[in-house]
C-alpha cells in the first residue's frame, strides 16, 4: 500500500528575476515498510522536499497525498495536528530546546499529545540502540554534535509517528554510528511497518535503503537498485 505520494510538485521562491525553482515537477512515492533515501548535493532542494512532505510548507503546484488524503491545503491548525499525530521530524540542524534536559525534550510533547506515544520499554530500546541512555539528564549544551543528533532522532521516534522524515540525520556521526542509525531506521521501517524517508548526501546510507531517489537541481529521478 502506498503511503506518501508527491504528484507533480513544483516549489518556487521569489518572483520575476529572483525566481528560484527549488523543486521542479517532482513525482515521488514512499511506502511503509521501506526506507526511502533521497540523495542530492547541497542546494538541490532536499530540505524543501522534506518540508513539503511533512506539511510544513505548501507546494506552489501539485499534490501531497498521505494514505490517499491530500494534505497540501490543510490549514495551519490542521497541519499542526497532522504533524503531531503522524510525523516524526529529524531536523537538519537538530535543534534541541536549550533549557530542557534530554528527557524533557522527549516528554514535552506529552502536554499536547498525552496518548499514542511509544511505550517506555520500546523507547528505552531506541535509546539503547542510539547509545544515549546515559545522557537522559543532560542539557543540550553538555552534548557533542553527534550525541545531539542522536537525541534529535530519538525525539522524532518518541511520538510513535507513522512517518519518519529525517534531514541529514548522519551529518555529525562517525562511521560506526552511521551504521547503527542506518540499521535503526531500517528496523523501524521493516519491523514496525512505517515509512522512513531520509534525505542526505551521505552515501554510506545507501546500503540500508529499499528505494533511492536522486535529486539534482530540483529534478528527481528514481534509481534502479
Amino acid at each position, binding site marked *: 500500500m502506498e503511503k506518501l505520494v508527491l504528484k507533480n510538485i513544483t516549489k518556487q521562491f521569489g518572483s520575476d528575476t529572483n525566481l528560484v525553482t527549488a523543486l521542479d515537477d517532482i513525482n515521488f512515492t514512499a511506502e511503509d515498510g521501506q526506507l526511502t533515501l533521497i540523495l542530492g548535493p547541497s542546494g538541490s532542494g532536499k530540505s524543501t522536499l522534506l518540508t513539503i512532505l511533512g506539511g510544513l510548507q505548501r507546494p506552489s503546484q501539485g499534490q501531497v497525498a498521505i494514505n490517499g488524503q491530500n494534505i497540501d491545503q490543510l490549514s495551519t491548525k490542521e497541519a499542526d495536528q497532522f*504533524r503531531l499525530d503522524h510525523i516524526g521530524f529529524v*531536523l*537538519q540542524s537538530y535543534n*534541541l530546546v536549550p533549557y530542557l534536559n534530554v528527557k524533557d525534550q522527549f516528554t514535552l510533547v506529552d502536554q499536547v499529545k498525552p496518548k499514542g506515544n511509544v511505550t517506555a520499554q520500546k523507547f528505552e530500546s531506541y535509546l539503547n540502540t542510539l547509545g544515549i541512555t546515559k545522557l537522559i539528564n543532560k542539557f543540550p549544551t553538555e552534548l557533542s554534535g553527534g550525541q545531539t543528533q542522536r537525541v534529535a532522532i530519538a525525539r522524532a521516534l518518541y511520538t510513535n509517528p507513522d512517518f519518519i522524515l529525517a534531514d541529514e540525520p548522519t551529518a555529525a556521526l562517525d562511521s560506526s554510528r552511521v551504521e547503527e542509525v542506518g540499521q535503526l531506521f531500517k528496523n523501524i521501517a521493516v519491523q514496525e511497518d512505517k515509512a522512513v524517508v531520509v534525505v542526505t548526501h551521505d552515501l554510506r546510507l545507501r546500503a540500508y535503503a529499499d528505494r533511492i531517489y536522486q535529486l539534482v537541481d530540483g529534478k528527481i529521478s528514481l534509481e534502479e537498485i
Partner: protein
Amino acid sequence: MIFILSALAFGLSRENTTAVEAWHTNSVVMSKDADGNLSQSLLTADDLADYAVNQDQAQVALTPGIMKGAGLREGVMFVGINADDLVSRSITLTKGHLSQNSDELVVSDKLRQKGFKLGQTVELGINNQNFKIVGFAKDAEYNIAPVAYGDIKEWSNVKGVSNRFVASGVVSKKTLVAKSDQVKAYSKAQFLNKMPGYSAQNSTFLFMIVFLIVISVIVVTIFLYILTIQKVENFAVLRAQGIPSRYLALNTLSQTVIIMVSAVALSVILALLVSLVIPTQVPMYFDIPLILLTGLGLVVMGTLGSLIPMGIIARIDPVTVIGG
C-alpha cells in the same frame, strides 16, 4: 517605585484631609467670599442661626498660625470647636484629655513627633496668646498643617478679627444648603478640591504614577520581546513537531502573568520595607485598595504588553529551522 510613589502621594494627599475625614463631613457651609477656602471664611452669629449644632453637625473656626514654645516653632491650623458636637466627638485622643477650659488645646500627634509635650504652654495667634497642650489626637491634619483644636470662642482673638465673627463654617454629616445669600454650601468633594494646592498636587502625582506605569509596561514589553526573539528558533522546532502555536503562546502568557504577579508582590514588599526606613516625617500611607488596584493595573498592562511577543509566536514559521 510606583508603590513608594503612590504611598508618598497618598500620604501627602491625606495630610490635607485627615481632619476632614475624621469629622465624617459630607458637606460644608461657609461665607461666599471665602471661595471654598474654609480658613478664609468668616461667619456672623446671624449666618449661623440657621444651622443647629449637634452630634451630626458642628461649627468650626479655622485660622492658620504659628505655634511657639520652648524654642519650637511650627505652622499649625487652629480649629476652634464647641464641646460635644460632631467635630469634638470625632477627635481620637492618643494621649491626654479633651479641653475643659478655653486656654487648653488638643493638638495633632505630628506636633508630638516634632517635640511638643503634654502640659506645655505655647503661644499661638496674632496676639501670641498663651495656651496649654492637654491632649494629642491622631488623624488631625488640615491642608498639610497639623491641627490644634481649641475653644471656638478664642478664634477671633487668635485670628485677629472682630468678635462679630464667631466661626468659619458649619460641617455636617447631612447635606447642607445655603440659607442666605451670604453663605455657600459645598459637597465634600467640592470642598476638598477647593483646598489650596490639593487638586494640583493630586493630579501631579496621578500623572507621575500613570507615567511610571506606562514606562514599566514598555520595559516589560521590550523585555518579553527580546526573550521571545531569542527563543524563536526553539519555538519553531516545537512547531515543526506539530505543537500548536496556541499552546506555546498560552504558556508564554501564563508565565508572563506569573512573573508580573511575583514582581508586583516583590515590589510591594520592597516598598513597605523602604517605608520603614524612611523618616516618619515623610508622609507615606499605604492604602490597601490603592495598592491592589495599581498592582492589578500593572499585571493587566504587562499582560497586554506581552501580546506583541505573543503575535510573534503565533506567526513563527516552522520551515525556518529545517533548511540549510
